[in-house]
């Protein structure tokens, strides 16, 4: 079992390095800079966790500190995806309110859960961390569901980078929400399953990202000289322009 955990623990780091290399190669930072920051942070966090794995007292803070970093950057990435997909709709005031509304819903639900369902986890600090984690995962899953619904309604498709990022995060956030809820309810006896489920779903998420960003996106520079217009085309344009202006 420790061997399996070790393999599962190292795999995401290797995959993340590959992903970071692909992201830099296809210059994703020009469009989704927060995603590149997220992946860069993930690589650094993994190195720090691995280096300090035998220092029990420091490792606790490193683990949960980096976990908070993952969660905050995860929200920023999903928000950037949301903005990139519905860029024009963001000009409408109530669309801009969607994100804060979901944030309030997630925090309220997590706090209500803490009030109404006592946890079996011992230690106030750990409970506070897990409740915060629940709020973040709720927000990520809600954002993911909203994105899927809107994409379905508007007929957008899922081959673009934005959707690749959302798909990976959606899978990971959903698994993390289920696993963290179970961990909150069952306490430390669920630690192994919780950790393994998170690792496996994270590996799948990184594989999804590698797949999406490996799909080549061809962009050609604009043509140097405009194509010649025939007299017939010029007449047709003038006719169309006249009809549009006439309206």
């Amino acid at each position, binding site marked *: 079992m420790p061997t399996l955990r070790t393999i599962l623990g190292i795999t995401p780091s290797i995959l993340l390095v590959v992903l970071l290399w692909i992201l830099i190669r296809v210059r994703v930072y020009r469009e989704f800079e927060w995603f590149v920051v997220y992946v860069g942070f993930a690589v650094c966090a993994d190195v720090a966790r691995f280096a300090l794995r035998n220092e029990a007292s420091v490792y606790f803070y490193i683990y949960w500190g980096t976990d908070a970093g993952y969660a905050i950057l995860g929200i920023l990435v999903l928000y950037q995806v949301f903005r990139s997909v*519905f*860029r*024009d*709709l963001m000009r*409408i*005031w*109530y669309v801009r309110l969607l994100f804060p509304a979901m944030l309030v819903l997630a925090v309220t*639900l997590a706090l*209500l*859960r803490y009030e*109404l*369902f006592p946890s079996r986890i011992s230690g106030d600090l750990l409970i506070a961390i897990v409740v915060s984690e629940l709020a973040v995962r*709720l927000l990520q*899953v*809600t954002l*993911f*569901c909203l994105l*899927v*619904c809107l*994409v*379905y*309604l*508007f*007929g*957008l*498709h*899922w*081959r*673009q980078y934005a*959707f690749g990022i*959302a*798909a990976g995060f*959606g*899978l990971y*956030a*959903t698994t993390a*929400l*289920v696993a963290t*809820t179970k961990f909150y309810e069952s306490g430390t006896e669920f630690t192994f399953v919780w950790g393994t489920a998170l690792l496996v779903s994270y590996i799948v998420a990184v594989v999804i990202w590698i797949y999406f960003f490996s799909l080549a*996106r*061809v*962009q*050609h*520079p*604009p*043509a140097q000289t405009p194509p010649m*217009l025939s007299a017939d*085309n010029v007449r*047709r*344009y003038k*006719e*169309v322009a006249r*009809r*549009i202006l006439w*309206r």
Partner: protein
Amino acid sequence: MIHQAIVRFIWDSIVLGGIASCFAVVIMIFWRPPERTVDDAIDYLVPVDLDRAEGLLDAAAEGHLRSRVSVAEFRSIQRRRMHLYLEILRRMAHNSAVLIQLGNRHAESGDVETIERARGLQDEGIRVRLYALAASAKIRTWLLLDRTHVLPSPVLCDIKEVCGIQGVEVYEKLKTAASMFFVGAMPSKLEQLLEHL
């Protein structure tokens, strides 16, 4: 006890929503319809009579009609007018979906100008579709409530702007965006496009 049940219900709904969304993404990736191309997009478009839509949304004309006929008669005419506008909205939503799909195809690859025009097409298409779906939902609710005969007949010109979007205006913008796209992609089909929009 009831608070616990409500929190648990909302919580479980979000979790189920997340799981369902994961499956939906897989389905959307692998079982999506064939992409629209510049060649065949026009065949899927349905003409929208914007003059007729403007006529239906005209407050003065509606007021004039209301003053000329009895309440019962106006209610019946208004229902027919609503069904007609619902049909126009259906066509708007359909056309915007077709053009968004066309935009999807070109927004990721090609030269920079084509990508820009394709994104413009997506943006305007999304606005039209949002308006059409929201306005349809509003009209359907009205039609449902109208059956009770408790409330007075609704005013159709209230539909002119829904969710902060003006329907006719935004559809005109979509037509312009589509024209711009076709000027770059396939000028020979521009006239045919405008006839079908």
